[in-house]
């Protein structure tokens, strides 16, 4: 059977499965819709969190980015996993004990202020929209390459599917769909990785294969071979980076803190029964994520080595079929500058003849390694699972922010549960349409901004939540000014250096040599400082709020998550 037939079958079967699950576990109350009824087991929640977390970016782009960036790519590996330690130790158990529906719920109640709640809602919307647009785009790319439809049609198909199960099922529906999506995506990621690891090193475990010797009888270690190939072609050594130490430090920190501050991740811990379950499920989530995150760097090494061996100094006319296929999508381009009919793939931009999009590395990897057609199709189904699960999680945050935090808590407190559920469904629908629009007409900034969503989350939520739990005397004035200063500073830096606003600037103008991706850590520190300074000049929080804080520090008596 051809790759195309296999893709239709696998994508068709998985989509039917997701829709079936959504119909079976549809939401019947706002509690079902926001926190899946609050009775999700730690393992199911761990799997759902992992699928929610691993987006099109982790599945498709990350290994590709690392394979071109080498050591510098470690910032994503550590940043996107290390954040779970912060989440498990500093946030999840306490937020579960607090037991509300959303992150703005916590901010609004802990800081006894509608203003705080609204600021938090705005931050949640900015973070979630920047993130979700990238997911829809990922869906479109996969559809266009594997099902030969154009990207726009692909985005629309994705929209309809997400709309169907997020709107119908709410948190309850997406939690169980995400469990299935986790299984699909991890299987799809591991199968080709194991195949290629055996091919190249004879070791079936990619994490070990990466550090093993090559299978060709030379006895050379794979990583040494790749370091050698890279320097030969004029690139940096793979195992060394080119970014400055400060910047690597700052980006890693921003991604870690941002991970812990992302509302669609935090909200997952409202769905388990007890505080104890929240801790355990954070551990399980990271364990399940780590399977992909420790395999990805191995895939990067295999893919880069394979790529160089396949193309470097080889005749263009002898390139395999995958080369032509990807040329058609525009993600791979060859320009025979010296007209010798061979491909020169080198670091020197004047002489380099091959441009390769990061995203190809995972998607084309099975083809480059000559794996069977069903494996190639499986990768397509896995990439779709990753993109759809994350998109659904984000849409839920957006709809809950509107229906619960704005409509119910600010504009119309007397709204009935049933009406609120319909408002939630309505806002999810509007959010899908907006996300789809950005997926079809990606404003140039989408790609640039997705990575910065972490900076925004780090700069706004993380300090407000941590101070809210660990600093009993923190008051609303401090927290609100901290969040505002943090997010504005981050927006300023990002628009200045990414879009050239406020006079723009180049790398040479970066403050302390820190890139916009890493600036979230500076903005976060600014948030902490502003909060604490403002606190010194403003009144303490009322007694009852300090009692709430004492209460959330004790794990027993968590009860069920409520919206009241």
């Amino acid at each position, binding site marked *: 059977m051809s790759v195309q037939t296999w893709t239709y079958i696998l994508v068709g079967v998985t989509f039917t499965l997701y829709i079936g699950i959504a119909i079976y576990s549809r939401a019947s109350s706002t509690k079902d819709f926001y926190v899946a009824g609050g009775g999700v087991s730690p393992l199911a929640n761990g799997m759902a969190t992992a699928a929610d977390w691993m987006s099109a970016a982790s599945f498709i782009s990350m290994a590709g980015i*690392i394979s071109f960036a080498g*050591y510098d*790519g*470690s910032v994503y*590996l*550590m940043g996107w*996993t*290390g954040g*779970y*330690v*912060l989440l*498990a*130790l*500093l946030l999840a*158990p306490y937020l579960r004990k607090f037991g509300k529906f959303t992150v703005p719920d916590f901010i609004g109640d802990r800081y006894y202020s509608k203003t705080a709640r609204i600021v938090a809602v705005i931050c949640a919307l900015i973070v979630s929209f920047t993130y979700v647009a990238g997911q829809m785009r990922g869906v479109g790319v996969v559809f266009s390459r594997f099902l030969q439809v154009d990207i726009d049609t692909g985005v629309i198909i994705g929209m309809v599917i997400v709309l169907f199960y997020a709107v119908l099922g709410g948190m309850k529906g997406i939690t169980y769909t995400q469990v299935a999506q986790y299984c699909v995506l991890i299987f799809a990621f591991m199968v080709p990785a194991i195949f290629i690891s055996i091919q190249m090193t004879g070791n079936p475990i990619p*994490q070990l294969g*990466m*550090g*093993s*010797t090559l299978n060709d009888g030379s006895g050379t*270690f*794979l*990583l*040494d071979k790749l370091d050698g190939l890279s320097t030969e072609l004029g690139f940096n050594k793979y*195992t060394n980076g080119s970014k400055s*130490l400060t910047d*690597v*430090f700052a980006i*890693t*920190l921003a991604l*870690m803190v941002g991970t812990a501050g992302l509302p669609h991740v935090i909200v997952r811990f409202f769905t388990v029964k*007890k505080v*104890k379950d929240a*801790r*355990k499920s*954070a*551990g399980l989530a*990271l*364990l399940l994520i*780590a399977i992909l*995150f*420790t395999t990805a*760097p191995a895939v990067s090494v295999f893919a880069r080595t394979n790529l160089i061996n396949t193309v470097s100094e080889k005749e263009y006319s002898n390139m395999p079929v995958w080369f032509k296929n990807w040329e058609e999508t525009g993600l791979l381009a060859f320009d025979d500058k010296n007209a010798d009919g061979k491909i020169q793939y080198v670091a020197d931009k004047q002489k380099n003849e091959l441009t390769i999009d990061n995203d190809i590395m995972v998607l084309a990897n099975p083809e480059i390694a000559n794996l069977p057609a069903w494996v190639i199709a499986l990768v397509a189904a896995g990439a779709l699972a990753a993109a759809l699960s994350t998109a659904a999680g984000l849409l839920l945050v957006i709809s809950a922010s509107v229906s619960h935090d704005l409509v119910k808590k600010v504009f119309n407190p007397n709204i009935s549960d049933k009406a609120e559920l319909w408002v939630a469904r309505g806002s999810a629908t509007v959010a899908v349409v907006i996300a789809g629009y950005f997926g079809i007409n990606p404003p140039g900034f989408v790609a640039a901004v997705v990575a910065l969503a972490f900076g925004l989350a780090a700069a706004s939520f993380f300090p407000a939540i941590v101070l809210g739990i660990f600093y009993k005397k923190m008051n609303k004035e401090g927290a609100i000014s901290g969040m505002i200063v943090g997010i504005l500073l981050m927006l300023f830096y990002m628009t200045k250096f990414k879009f050239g606003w406020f006079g723009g600037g180049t790398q040479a103008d970066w403050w302390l040599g820190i890139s916009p991706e890493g600036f979230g850590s500076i903005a976060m520190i600014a948030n902490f400082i502003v909060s604490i300074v403002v606190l010194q000049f403003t009144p303490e929080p009322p007694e009852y709020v300090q009692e709430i804080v*004492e209460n959330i*520090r*004790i*794990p*027993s*008596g*968590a009860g069920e998550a409520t919206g009241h």
Partner: protein
Amino acid sequence: MSEKQKKASAYWKENAKYLFILLSIWFIVSFGAAILFKDALDTIKIGGFKLGFWFAQQGSIYVFVILIFVYVRLMNKLDKKYNYNE
């Protein structure tokens, strides 16, 4: 301070101690071994891996997972000790 409050604050202190220790390890492994001292550790080689590079792309992630499970165990014990478990 009532008996109940005393118990709560003793619990919180022990919790804070655990957090301090675990987060120190978190910091040393990721920002220390994988970033600040990467070059020094790279002189040591285990199999095909330079140690600093291994920490950055593999080791730190394993440590993160272990840290959370150690935390879960410690806290479950602490909850029992203070009778906060349910």
